[in-house]
């Protein structure tokens, strides 16, 4: 690996298998990290093996090997990504601790001496991101010593978006199709861009999956029919194929059809490279500014407050529309000046609509004006809900903090059309 500083990493975390990539600035593209040097083995099992009586962990292929020994215990992906603690003979481990062990060991494939010092960003991508996984992954990275700015999460469809839109513009000039193979099943997704609004939005549409025959000739015809059904009504400039159950030996007619319509790429590392492209986009290029991927995890409403900053009235954004809910959090402190309640400003994604939302602070201690400091925290538990916490911090030695906490939730629902 030729990157040693400000390393950008894509991490595809799956229940069965995982893989890593890093951004190669010389080649100007992500490169998959092999599990063994000099091989094309990029995927490794999502499994841990722990030596009994010691904090010695192995992951992936190594774990599968050590797991055959009596003095090691195996922990499978379902448990690592689960919700319940895992009881090993010598100790119990929470899913966060298991994730920390798995992520920490996996990242050593990069060959970096100081992970937290060398890595700029790790983008973790998964099929879906329920709240328990978001919490556990965050906890894992925190315990490994990464700062919040050094890691992020996105689902695999968002990685698809970043992969596609990081190719040459001709590839995404029109819609981009994605065929995902899982042995005998194939599913279809497409990226569709709406250039009429501002910002320009890109969304994924999904079609029902199809089951393919084991007979290769019939399989090819079935794939052709499936592709035709989903692509004939659209205009496509790019096609991506990924997953297991596909290789170049059998899909003659179907591939010919796809190539007539668009450029076609096949690879098993679409999502991990897409995650890496996303890390590169967030941390360095910002080339896709002006476009928003309409993820199901997307927060579609901004929350902010009109505040006084060094005496000047300013709008301070707290939660930004266009970010994923698990990245949407903020914390500020301010002094109350002749106010006994909090007023938030909510605005739509296109910033054309605004409304206000009030949060009362009942039993706020009586103090002179400008002598109460409030700590405000906001975080989202889904794309639809933001949680707000306000805490009284008093005013130094003048007025001790009561640490009274007020909580509220703000629904992030779309504005009614007027």
């Amino acid at each position: 690996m030729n990157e040693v500083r400000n390393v950008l990493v894509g991490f595809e975390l799956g229940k069965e298998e995982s893989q890593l990539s890093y951004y190669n600035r010389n080649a100007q593209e992500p490169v998959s990290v092999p599990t063994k040097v000099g091989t094309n083995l990029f995927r490794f099992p999502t499994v841990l093996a722990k030596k009994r009586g010691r904090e010695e962990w192995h992951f992936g292929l190594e774990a599968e090997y050590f797991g055959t020994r009596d003095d090691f215990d195996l922990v499978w992906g379902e448990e690592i990504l689960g919700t319940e603690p895992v009881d090993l003979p010598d100790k119990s481990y929470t899913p966060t601790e298991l994730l920390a062990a798995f992520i920490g060991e996996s990242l050593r494939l990069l060959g970096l001496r100081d992970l937290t010092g060398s890595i700029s960003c790790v983008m973790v991508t998964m099929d879906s991101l329920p709240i328990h996984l978001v919490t556990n992954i965050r906890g894992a990275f925190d315990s490994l010593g990464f700062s919040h700015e050094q890691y992020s999460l996105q689902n695999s469809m968002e990685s698809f978006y970043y992969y596609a839109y990081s190719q040459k513009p001709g590839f995404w000039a029109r819609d981009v199709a994605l065929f995902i193979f899982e042995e005998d099943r194939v599913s279809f997704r497409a990226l569709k861009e709406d250039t009429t609004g501002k910002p320009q939005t890109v969304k994924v549409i999904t079609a029902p999956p199809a089951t393919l025959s084991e007979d290769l000739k019939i399989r090819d015809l079935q794939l052709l029919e499936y592709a035709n059904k989903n692509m004939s009504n659209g205009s496509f400039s790019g096609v991506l194929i990924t997953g297991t159950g596909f290789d170049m030996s059998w899909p003659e007619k179907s591939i010919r059809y796809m190539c007539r319509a668009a450029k076609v790429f096949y690879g098993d590392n679409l999502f991990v490279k897409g995650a890496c492209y996303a890390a590169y986009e967030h941390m360095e290029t910002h080339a896709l500014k002006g476009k928003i991927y309409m993820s199901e995890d997307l927060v579609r409403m901004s929350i902010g407050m009109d505040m006084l900053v060094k005496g000047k009235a300013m709008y301070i954004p707290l939660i930004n529309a266009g970010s994923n809910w698990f990245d949407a959090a903020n914390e500020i402190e301010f002094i109350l000046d002749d106010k006994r309640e909090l007023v938030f400003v909510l605005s739509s994604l296109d910033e054309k609509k605004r409304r206000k939302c009030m949060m009362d602070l009942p039993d706020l201690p009586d103090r002179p004006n400008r002598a109460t400091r409030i700590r405000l925290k906001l975080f989202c538990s889904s794309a639809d809900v933001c949680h707000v916490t306000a805490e009284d911090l008093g005013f130094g030695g003048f007025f001790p903090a009561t640490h009274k906490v007020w909580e509220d939730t703000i629904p992030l629902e779309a504005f009614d059309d007027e």
Partner: protein
Amino acid sequence: MAGYRLCGTKYAQTPYYIENISTSIYSIEELCYYFYNNIPLLDSTIIGTELTKWIASELMLPKLAENMNIALERRKSISGFVTPVFRECGYLSTSQLDAYTARLSDYLQLPGPLRLKDKGDALTRTGKYSAAEAAYRQVIEDGKTAAFRPEFLSAVYHNLGVVLMRMLLFEEGLRAFEEAWKLRQSQKHVLAYVRAIAITKPEEKALMELRLKGLSEEEARSVYSEAETTINFARSAANPVIPDDIDSYVRHLMEDYHNSVGG
């Protein structure tokens, strides 16, 4: 201008202790609050390089600290030392800061003895009786060589008496009240003096002293009777509810007392 004033600067790990009010501050906003509400207490215990060092190292505002030092060293300007702090965090609106600057300027133009008395009054309000006593006595000392108006000096003696009484130095307090009375026989000073006699001495001795001061028997008893209201109130407080943790209670009382008298 009402609103929410965003705190953009760091919260200090180590607070700055303001001796005049026995209070620790952790932020620039708290420093502004002190400056805004305690103009008479902007003295050498706060205006100096100890504060600017704290601002530079704990609040991470070296540029502000440098500007404050320049104002102090080159221009000897208290206003120049104080107002940049308000501007740094926007604690006051523009009109509020203008009003404060004008108030500060007016105060700084007052004669020294008047500012010293104001300082004593402010220290009394914050419970720093020993420091207040020192301020009043300095004014009195200066008054020996300067021609202060009797009304002004009697007010200083009166306030000195109040402070001494609060420090339980009754005889000294009585003498201060007596001086106030001698300088100006206003009703307030007369009442303060005779009440002090009645409160601090046994009934017989109090009545005798009051008679020696020229009060008739009837007047003396009337004053004493009035003072009894105060005495009874004091006696009711002599039977306080004893808390379970008596050691902490007593320690707290002692700390308060020592804080006030500077011991």
